[in-house]
């Protein structure tokens, strides 16, 4: 019993409700957002510390014992993601202060971001699979509103597709829940895990597992279910895409981890092989997409797909090093994707275009922006002192331990392609001949850079302070490796 667990969900929820009451008071909205996100950040830091010292924290809502009531569970994996998610969205909202524009602000932009945060945090912390569905819907509804807010033509066109894909995946989620309830007669994840372990994972359960993989794959954007992602994420402005890129797909990834490490881990030769193959292709598809385009946003979006593939592969490795690598990479990727999209947004603010060929020589007047982008690119590709390195090293080590040589090869190759794709942006946009003179520039980067400075500092800390971060990640990996820790914490047998 610990009310701390519900704070990361409750704070944004209350804030969002409050923000609905004052749509035209933009200054006040900004102030309330900052205060609430500061509180949420502090609460999640305390939560991580508490989980680190005292083990898994649970909250039985309404004092109903699990499996009968809904239980919120904060293990290290979930609380690390809660902390990272809160910080990244904080920075995205700070970026939005100067970039999103009055029109969107007075139509509940800040309220919707808080609702989105509610859904994401709830999805991370819940211990009940139907409740996971509900929090998915909270998150998706907020994301529908955010993707179309402003109502430009391309936003309307892409949001139609985005909504349709997610309606279908939600219906599939409901079907999968119906099957699992019909088979197991319970919805609490720890209890399902127990019952699956008792009855043995029969063929039908493996089918349900694949159905869950399809559902979460649609949310997370793995091959061949990533097709909606490039178009949909391209439509909204950068502040919103950064939020989506850092949080939404990661929730799908988290759900895949949860289900396949806690519930369906008895038939790895079927499920985990499928995940491995799909993850491998996802990495390649993302890398190919990233090198194919001459559009800053498109390149960054395809890098999301690559990263999702890399992280998902950790499930297939199913050893502690692999899990630790995936978790490290997941945390790093949320931070660095946020930073890259925010830097891309600052570039867009200056040039008014996403097309690489229409930019050039930005380094002359925007040296800070340029070198920040350079550092972010290095971190994304996994160059040693920065954060991307540690996760990839652990994944390579885990891959070698499990004799997955093809994966190690694919991942290292993809790092090269990813590096090429972001360096293409850096070399063409910041060097080369100057395209826009000082007068032709659309705006300034005033106030747009410091959120990404903070995110990059965090990324550098994740890389340089690996000694400090590693015990936390290792504890998370241990819980994933041994589901009985989770089950005991929830059911207290």
């Amino acid at each position, binding site marked *: 019993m610990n009310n701390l667990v519900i704070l990361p969900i409750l704070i944004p929820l209350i804030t969002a409700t409050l923000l609905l009451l004052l749509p035209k008071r933009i200054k006040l909205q900004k102030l309330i957002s900052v205060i609430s996100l500061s509180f949420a950040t502090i609460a999640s830091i305390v939560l991580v510390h508490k989980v680190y010292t005292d083990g898994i924290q649970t909250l039985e809502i309404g004092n109903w014992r699990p499996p009968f009531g809904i239980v919120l569970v904060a293990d290290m994996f979930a609380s690390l993601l809660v902390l990272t998610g809160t910080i990244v969205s904080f920075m995205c909202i700070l970026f939005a202060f100067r970039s999103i524009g009055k029109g969107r602000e007075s139509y509940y932009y800040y309220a919707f971001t808080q609702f989105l945060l509610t859904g994401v945090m709830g999805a991370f912390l819940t211990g009940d699979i*139907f409740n996971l*569905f*509900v929090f998915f*819907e909270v998150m*998706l*509804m907020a994301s*529908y*509103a955010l993707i*179309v807010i402003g*109502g430009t*033509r*391309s936003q*309307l*066109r892409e*949001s*139609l*597709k985005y*909504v*349709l894909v997610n*309606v*279908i995946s*939600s*219906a*599939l989620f*409901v*079907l999968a*829940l*119906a*099957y699992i*309830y*019909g088979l197991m007669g319970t*919805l609490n994840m720890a209890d399902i895990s127990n019952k699956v372990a008792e009855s043995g994972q029969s063929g039908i359960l493996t089918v349900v597992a694949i159905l869950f993989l399809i559902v979460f794959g649609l949310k997370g954007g793995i091959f061949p279910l990533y097709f909606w992602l490039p*178009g949909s994420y*391209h439509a909204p402005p950068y502040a919103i895409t950064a939020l989506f890129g850092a949080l939404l797909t990661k929730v799908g990834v988290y759900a895949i981890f949860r289900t396949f490490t806690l519930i369906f881990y008895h038939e790895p030769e079927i499920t985990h092989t499928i995940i491995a193959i799909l993850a491998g292709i996802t990495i390649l598809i993302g890398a190919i997409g990233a090198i194919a385009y001459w*559009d800053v*946003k*498109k390149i960054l979006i395809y890098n999301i797909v690559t990263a999702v593939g890399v992280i998902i592969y950790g499930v297939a490795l199913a050893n502690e090093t692999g899990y630790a690598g995936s978790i490290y990479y997941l945390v790093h990727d949320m931070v660095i994707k946020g930073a890259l999209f925010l830097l891309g947004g600052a570039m867009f603010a200056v040039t008014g275009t*996403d*097309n690489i060929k229409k930019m050039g020589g930005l380094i002359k007047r925007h040296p800070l922006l340029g070198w920040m982008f350079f550092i972010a690119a290095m971190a994304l590709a996994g160059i040693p002192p920065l954060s991307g390195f540690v996760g990839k090293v652990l994944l390579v080590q885990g891959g070698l331990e499990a004799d997955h040589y093809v994966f190690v090869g694919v991942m290292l190759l993809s790092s090269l392609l990813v590096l090429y794709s972001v360096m293409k942006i850096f070399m063409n946009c910041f060097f080369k001949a100057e395209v826009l003179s000082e007068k032709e520039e659309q705006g300034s980067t005033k106030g747009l850079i410091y959120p990404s400075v903070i995110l990059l500092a965090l990324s550098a800390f994740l890389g340089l302070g690996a000694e400090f971060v590693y015990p936390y990640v290792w504890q998370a990996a241990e819980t994933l490796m041994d589901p009985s820790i989770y089950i005991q914490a929830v059911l207290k047998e």
Partner: protein
Amino acid sequence: MEIVMTIVAGILIATAVYLMLSRSILRIVIGTGLLSHGAHLMILTMGGLKRGAAPLLGQEASSYTDPLPQALILTAIVISFGVTSFFLVLAYRAYQELKTDDMDKLRGNENHE
């Protein structure tokens, strides 16, 4: 009884898939409606369709039907209701703005504005 319900849900979902693959936005929205009908029927069916009193303690019966799927279905209905109404308004706005309801004409890439 479960078999009949499963077949009905199967037909609903097949129809929904057919409608969602068509070109008109309105047909697609109707398809999503049928899809959620099918999914909701499946929740009810998978919970078991055994005979028993309605889950009201006032009925004082010896056995009741399973109340949990009914609570799940109620939640899922409200959610899909919300999403559908949003989708309809979105389709209407898109029709006003883009002057077409043909999904084939809404294809596009980043530079197509």
